[in-house]
């Protein structure tokens, strides 16, 4: 997909109105760019959820998907992460599940409030699948 020219934090999206790069307030999810119609946040999220929800996803596709997703300038929505964690469960890969949690914490960078929010949203899934957070395992410290 085309590289995003504006910084997207999908989580913050729901909490405030948005300004596209021309400074126009958009209450709609779609944006006006000079260079073709860009994907909306909902479409982006839906595409990635669908990717990880593939029932017979294989280990390579999981790694590839996660590495690509982490490469974007955004922190993935909880629903994408939930789909990825469930994919780890289908692949019997607990290590990757824990690694995903570490990676999104790292992606949030200086915005320390994002990771607790993600964990809060993912708690039901983590409990259901029996995934421990890096903090619970003590590997978040050296």
């Amino acid at each position, binding site marked *: 997909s085309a590289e995003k020219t504006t910084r997207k934090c999908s989580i913050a999206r729901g909490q405030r109105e948005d300004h596209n790069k021309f400074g126009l307030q958009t209450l709609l999810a779609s944006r006006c760019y000079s260079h073709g119609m860009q994907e909306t946040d909902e479409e982006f999220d839906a595409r990635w959820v669908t990717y990880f929800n593939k029932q017979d996803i294989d280990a390579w596709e999981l790694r590839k998907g996660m590495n690509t997703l982490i490469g974007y300038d955004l922190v993935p929505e909880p629903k994408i992460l939930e789909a990825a964690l469930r994919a780890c469960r289908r692949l019997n890969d607990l290590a990757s599940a824990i690694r995903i949690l570490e990676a999104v914490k790292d992606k949030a960078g200086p915005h320390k409030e994002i990771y607790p929010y993600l964990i809060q949203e993912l708690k039901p899934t983590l409990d259901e699948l029996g995934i421990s957070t890096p903090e619970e395992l003590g590997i*978040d410290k050296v």
Partner: protein
Amino acid sequence: MLATRALSLVGKRAISTSVCVRGGHGVAKVEDYTLPGYFDSPEQKSLKEKERGSWAALSNDEKIALYRISFKQSFAEMNQTTSEWKSVIGGMFFLIGFTGLVVLWQRKYVYGPVPHTFEAEYKEKELQRMLDMQINPVEGFSAKWDYENKQWKK
């Protein structure tokens, strides 16, 4: 189930070393991106079997062990700072200091004497000549010289 097929394949070490089987242009070994897909010890093998069941049944130590099979360092370990910069700065100062010693030695043993124009007597004659020529008499050099009393203006 795909995972069992993958596991049995791993056991026989039948993984091809390039991705040409999958993609068609064989760029890099897939294994380069993660730790090897074989297990060192029987404990690791049995742990991997246990991983296929409920994860809630695993103890924290087992979870950490599973993590370590796949990942050499955690994010915290990977991102930790080193004290290397101290060695770098220290080394820089040391070498600068050593260079200073080299320069001093050179001054003493390599360079010849400075030209005679640096001698005090010569410099006095130079100064007198400049005053006689009234170099910069309005605001600069000679303007600061008191010609009546033959001294610098106070």
